[in-house]
């Protein structure tokens, strides 16, 4: 049926009426040289099932070199965020429905498992029964939420679903301690997952179990988004009216998306509840929702692989910044500063000037401070690590800093704002004192309050990443009508 181009033309040549620059796009993509080109080519030429298999093989080796605690925090919870992100991606990334009540379904799955397998109500059903029930309960409640809000779009849908999420937390919180959800204390002593007589007890077993769950969910979604249903979800996201006039039953597909998202969240909750051995209303509040959204947005809404990478980046960086180990946060802080400097400051003369100026400025200020006051540099470096010596002789750490670090922090923010508006050598000139001030504020203020610092750094990381790639790491560029 296809119109053949006239045979007199060379098949390799761009055809008449076709932009040759656009026509050669494939060759130009193949022309990417170096490691990036090799990696891209290898990725492109691997069939999708093998890509998944490669990821799983890699993930399966994690327990070999991570301790039980680290496996739980880095391995298990990364997979939890991947699963939650995949579910949210169906609703937000594919169907384009801004669902802010998503985290409630995670909670509903967890609570359903907990109610049916704990001492609270004396019910101890096996997991092969409770996990499907948790999925079904979540999916049905997702359907209910979808039904009641099927006429709403955008901001309006967001408000209604946000209310639903809050209502769930309030409901779980206000029950009688012996009531359905155990009230503010939640439900403790949840049974381990016991499936067909085999009981999971160790972190390693839970890790492999959720890895299996991830494979099932990922493969199912991969197939689904490459079917008429996935295409229709995308059409619904792009233009609901046009989709409906092209015979797509819009309401049914919205409800289906809500159900799928809720079901996946419910499954995740039912695995997390026994792994944590307890559930409480606070485990399912808005902060988790924001983290899941960060996973989807960072990875690229509408991309399954993107969600996986987004979850790894977010969970691993979040756990690295844990308050228990501030020296890791310090590594991350200085590492990112130095890498960003090496990557972004060009040409070379500027970079060299910047490095020399920053180092000289630091030692200069340190020398002046030491000369003028006995106590100005005699404060102790917070926590150890082998950077201690270098920091002690570079950064001014007063014994009694008083409000100085607070003022420094405000000044730092002001200087960063000014930095974004100046260009050229002025920027280099201003960057050196800013970097030094950042180190000063970090050592005197931020590192002493790790739980707050964690959030500040996490936010800064997200802002920086989203500025570099607004569409997310693996998302495709989205355009509005132009």
């Amino acid at each position, binding site marked *: *049926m*296809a*119109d053949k*181009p006239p045979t007199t033309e060379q098949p390799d040549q761009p*055809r008449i*009426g*076709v932009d040759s620059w*656009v*026509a050669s*796009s*494939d060759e130009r993509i193949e022309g990417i040289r170096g490691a990036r080109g090799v990696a891209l080519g290898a990725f492109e030429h691997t069939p999708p099932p093998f890509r998944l298999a490669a990821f799983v093989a890699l993930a399966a080796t994690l327990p070999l070199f991570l301790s039980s605690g680290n496996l739980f925090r880095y391995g298990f919870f990364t997979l939890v965020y991947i699963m939650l992100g995949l579910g949210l991606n169906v609703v937000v990334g594919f169907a384009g429905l801004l669902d802010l009540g998503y985290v409630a379904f995670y909670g509903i799955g967890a609570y359903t498992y907990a109610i049916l397998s704990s001492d609270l109500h004396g019910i101890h059903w096996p997991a092969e029964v409770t996990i499907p029930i948790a999925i079904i309960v979540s999916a049905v409640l997702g359907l209910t939420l979808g039904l009641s809000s099927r006429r709403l779009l955008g901001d309006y849908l967001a408000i209604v679903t946000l209310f639903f999420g809050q209502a769930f937390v309030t409901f779980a919180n206000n029950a009688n301690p012996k009531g359905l959800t155990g009230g503010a204390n939640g439900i403790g002593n949840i049974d381990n997952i016991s499936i067909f007589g085999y009981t999971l007890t160790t972190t390693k077993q839970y890790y492999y179990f959720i890895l299996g769950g991830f494979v099932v969910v990922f493969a*199912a979604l991969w*197939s*689904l988004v490459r*079917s*008429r*249903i*996935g*295409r*229709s979800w*995308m*059409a619904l996201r*792009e*233009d609901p*009216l*046009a*989709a*409906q*006039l*092209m*015979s*797509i*039953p*819009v309401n049914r597909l919205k409800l*289906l998306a809500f159900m799928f998202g809720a079901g996946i969240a419910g499954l995740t909750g039912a695995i997390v509840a026994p792994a944590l051995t307890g559930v409480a209303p606070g485990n399912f509040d808005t902060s988790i929702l924001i983290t899941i959204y960060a996973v989807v947005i960072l990875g690229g809404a509408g991309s399954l692989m993107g969600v996986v990478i987004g979850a790894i980046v977010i969970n691993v960086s979040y756990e690295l910044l844990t308050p228990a180990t501030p020296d890791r946060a310090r590594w991350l802080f200085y590492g990112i500063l130095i890498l960003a400097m090496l990557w972004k400051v060009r040409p070379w003369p500027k970079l060299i000037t910047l490095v020399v100026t920053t180092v000289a400025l630091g030692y200069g200020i340190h020398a002046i401070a030491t000369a003028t006051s006995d106590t100005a540099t005699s404060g102790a470096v917070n926590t150890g690590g082998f950077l201690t010596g270098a920091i002690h002789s570079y950064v001014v750490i007063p014994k009694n800093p008083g409000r100085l670090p607070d003022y420094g922090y405000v000044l730092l923010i002001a200087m960063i704002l000014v930095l974004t508006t100046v260009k050229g050598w002025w920027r280099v000139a201003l960057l050196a004192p800013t970097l030094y001030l950042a180190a000063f504020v970090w050592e005197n203020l931020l590192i002493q309050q790790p739980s707050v610092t964690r959030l500040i750094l996490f936010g800064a990381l997200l802002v920086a990443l989203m500025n570099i790639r607004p569409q997310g790491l693996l998302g*495709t560029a*989205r*355009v*509005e*009508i*132009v």
Partner: protein
Amino acid sequence: MSSTHILELQKVSMDFGGLQVISDLDLHVEEGEIVSVIGPNGAGKTTLFNLVTGVYRPVSGDILLDGESLVGLPPHKIAKRGVARTFQTLRLFLNMTVKENVEVPTWAHTKSGVFSSIFRTPRMRREEREIEKLAEEKLAFFGQRLMGYRWNQPAYSLSYANRRRLEIARATALLPRILLLDEPAAGMNPAETHEITELIGKLRDEGGYTILVIEHDMHVVEGISNRVVALDHGVKIAEGSFDAVATDPRVVEAYLGVSGTTTK
């Protein structure tokens, strides 16, 4: 009622809060013909399309497709029965590829559900291959314009004229009984307008489509129409061949206003 009437409007009226947009409109389209709807802005042409496709529900009157009433059906069911349309202001799925855009309306005549999609059953995969083949066929109708590498480009990368072509291709992938084209030549240059005129003729002659088209460009209307219907203030003021309608004094008056006695 003649059995060759694919689309028939019987005394259809529509108002928006007291503003009469369409009043007692009778219209029919026969198999294999192109009927053009003309009229000044605000005459109710696009409202007519919105009534037929189910976006609005008429206040009174009946709309029949192959003798069966469409009134009260939701838009997707009307589309499934075979009414496909394009939009005056383009409404493509811009972030989907060209091919995906054309694959979306095949929903109307495919069946795979959630489970067969997840497990990729042989039937589902066969259906997907058929969908792809159909989409390629529909795109091939436009010559080289929407072929080759463009299949996998996002729709937003297309030029304006190609977006109009893609909208028509998308509508034909519904395998419709009747195709409603809303100003297919709007915003096109003379060469492209000429091309789209030929294309609409080709859709009828080679594709076998029955077409109801809204158009302002009289060269296009003259080139393609079997019949022309002129609307003004929601009332049909003339109907017939292009020459008859174009010279009808009421049509001239609707477009140009009353010129007193000087033209007499």
